[in-house]
């Protein structure tokens, strides 16, 4: 959803800053096989243009500088004819992409830095209910992620990386991690052996990573008459999810008796199944399965500006040291007056901003961030 208030000042300012960025950053080093990709973009009036194709980066940059979109997307799929209608594109495979987002982690601090904006008048409310300003509009929430949020999402990203590297055996050179530019990370896997997986196969992978559908039988606990029996699988319990669960339960290939006692202690087969579900929830990763399973989707282009924040979708070389509010904040420092809708504190480019007044003079990157979030507008009087 586009949160920007559609005023002449806002649009003129944002377009100017975005155009300058695309003019100065015209390389897109992480865009491979450009001629096989479908491109699309969202305009400032929220209209989406799709089915575009470019042969060279220069053509793409020219389009971005000319039309200045709010968001730029490209397909994970490789097509023979990327600009044709979807059923005539000739699908030739697709990168495997994973999306993790702070909002899916249910972090307790979320409400401490959430703002509830009216969908009709743009007023910032303190609670999620009918707007107290116009009494008509419904509110939607936006959030300014804090340090705790980023620590939590980076931990989740590290878990995902481990699954990809050690369970799925994907070589490091095929995995690229990007900060989405707002509140999450995108993992792009361009391993050629994974490219031809259909949607069902991808769904099988996402269930593996989330931890959906583990059966007690896989670790050797089977339903038997009114109770259960133990029969460990021939292929062992010391790999993959079986290992994660076995380690968590403190058992190995020789612990049949211990396993029997554990099942009895959890109240039999059904109780043990609940215990397994608890473990899979703990070790699974909160990815958005629909994103990964879709083989015709368009994704935010690495190196492009995220219209929800003004931050850039940025390659993350080292998860631990990556600082999204600094490393992905690439817009200019020139100052501009904004009208704030609420008091707030924010840290961008390693600078703290405590904004208490209705009219504030801030660097452009702060102004873009707040206008994109719907928390400020560009002042008419500069």
């Amino acid at each position: 959803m586009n949160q920007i208030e559609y005023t002449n000042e806002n649009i003129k300012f944002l377009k100017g800053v975005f155009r300058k960025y695309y003019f100065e950053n015209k390389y897109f080093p992480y865009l491979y096989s450009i001629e096989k990709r479908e491109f699309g973009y969202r305009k400032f009036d929220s209209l989406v243009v799709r089915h575009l194709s470019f042969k060279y980066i220069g053509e793409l940059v020219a389009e971005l500088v000319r039309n200045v979109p709010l968001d730029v997307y490209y397909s994970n799929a490789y097509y023979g004819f990327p600009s044709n209608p979807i059923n005539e594109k000739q699908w030739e495979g697709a990168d495997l992409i994973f999306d993790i987002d702070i909002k899916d982690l249910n972090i307790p601090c979320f409400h401490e830095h959430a703002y509830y904006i009216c969908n009709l008048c743009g007023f910032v409310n303190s609670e999620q209910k009918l707007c107290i300003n116009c009494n008509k509009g419904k509110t939607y929430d936006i959030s300014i992620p804090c340090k705790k949020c980023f620590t939590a999402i980076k931990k989740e990203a590290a878990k995902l990386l481990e699954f990809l590297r050690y369970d799925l055996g994907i070589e490091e050179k095929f995995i690229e991690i990007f900060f989405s530019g707002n509140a999450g990370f995108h993992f792009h896997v361009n391993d050629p052996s994974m490219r031809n997986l259909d949607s069902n196969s991808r769904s099988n992978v996402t269930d593996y990573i989330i931890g959906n559908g583990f059966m007690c039988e896989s670790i050797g606990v089977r339903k038997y008459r009114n109770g259960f029996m133990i029969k460990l699988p021939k292929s062992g319990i010391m790999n993959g999810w079986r290992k994660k669960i076995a380690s968590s339960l403190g058992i190995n290939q020789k612990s049949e008796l211990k396993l029997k006692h554990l099942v009895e202690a959890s109240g039999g087969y059904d109780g043990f199944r609940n215990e397994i579900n608890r473990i899979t929830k703990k070790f699974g990763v909160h990815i958005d399965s629909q994103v990964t399973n879709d083989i015709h989707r368009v994704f935010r282009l690495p190196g492009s500006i995220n219209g929800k924040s003004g931050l850039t979708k940025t390659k993350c070389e080292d998860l631990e040291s990556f600082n999204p509010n600094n490393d992905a904040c690439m817009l200019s420092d020139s100052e501009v007056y904004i009208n704030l809708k609420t008091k707030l504190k924010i840290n961008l480019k390693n600078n703290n901003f405590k904004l208490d007044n209705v009219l504030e003079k801030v660097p452009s990157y702060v102004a873009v961030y707040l206008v994109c979030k719907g928390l400020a507008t560009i002042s008419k009087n500069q």
Partner: protein
Amino acid sequence: MAKYPFLQEASDYIQETKFDFAEFDRPEMIHIINRAVEKLENELKGKIYSNLDEYEIEIMTFLVSLLLIKSIGLEEISKKCSLFEAMRVERFLSTDLSIERSQKKKLLVQKIFQELFNINIDFDSTSSICKLSIPDYLLRASKMHEQEWKLINRSIKDGYVYLDTDEAVRLIRNELSNLIYTRIKNMKVYEVPILIKSKADELRKKYSGRYVYRNQFKILEYPPCIKHAMEIINKGENLPHSARFMLATYMLAIGKTEEEVIEIFKNSPDYNEKITRYQVEHLAGKKGSHIKYSVPSCDRLRSEDLCFAVKECENLINPIQFGRRKLT
């Protein structure tokens, strides 16, 4: 070769012997034709034909079976016999892969996996465990509905899936069945030998009745996933795209008209008749790709958080199976 008559070597053998179809009308071939009929009847009754003869006999029996199925000309019979032939082969493969079998036999099986299905599979010489790459596994296992085939229930390490040999063989059953089915479908027979044709006529007469008027059902109750989506729509709340897809494909699959399906979505907060009509017609296969979309499987709905299973959902693989009664 006797166990695996679909291999290239078997076709080469027939070509080398310069065998002519007309030779099937010779009296000494009757026992081959009768054997093929016996095998087909077994398969049509749902049994695997387990007799194994010398390779010349097996290759000829296989060839006659294909001719018979082709001449019967019934899709269901082609599919059923292909599946049971695949299951017969599966038994032989399992035995050849057991620990006590020679390395030579294991190499033959490895060759079958590689040649026919383009799967590189490594067999451990000291155990009954083998490994194959995750993409090779996924492309096959994702077509299986039993939960045990989901990747999460498998032994996985460093990009490989570890299976016991019976499981590895089971994994290719569908593909093998499809391979045999495709062979039957693509066979170009200009003149079927008289004897085979008359046997095919008899079999058609005997079995065709079993395959008519199937799949006619009446839905008595919506499944819980559909009920839930309907409740949200009726409350005027927003349904995610995946739930709309499920709801529309389900309604079309149970025989609702496009108009009736469009009507269901009228209460959506973002309802737009033009867009809804296009999308429903698209799903019904009347617009765009002209492919009719199927209802997503229960497995897919579970992973998209759209499943609200109740006890009656046990063992179902698709919501379409819920609450239906066969029409008599």
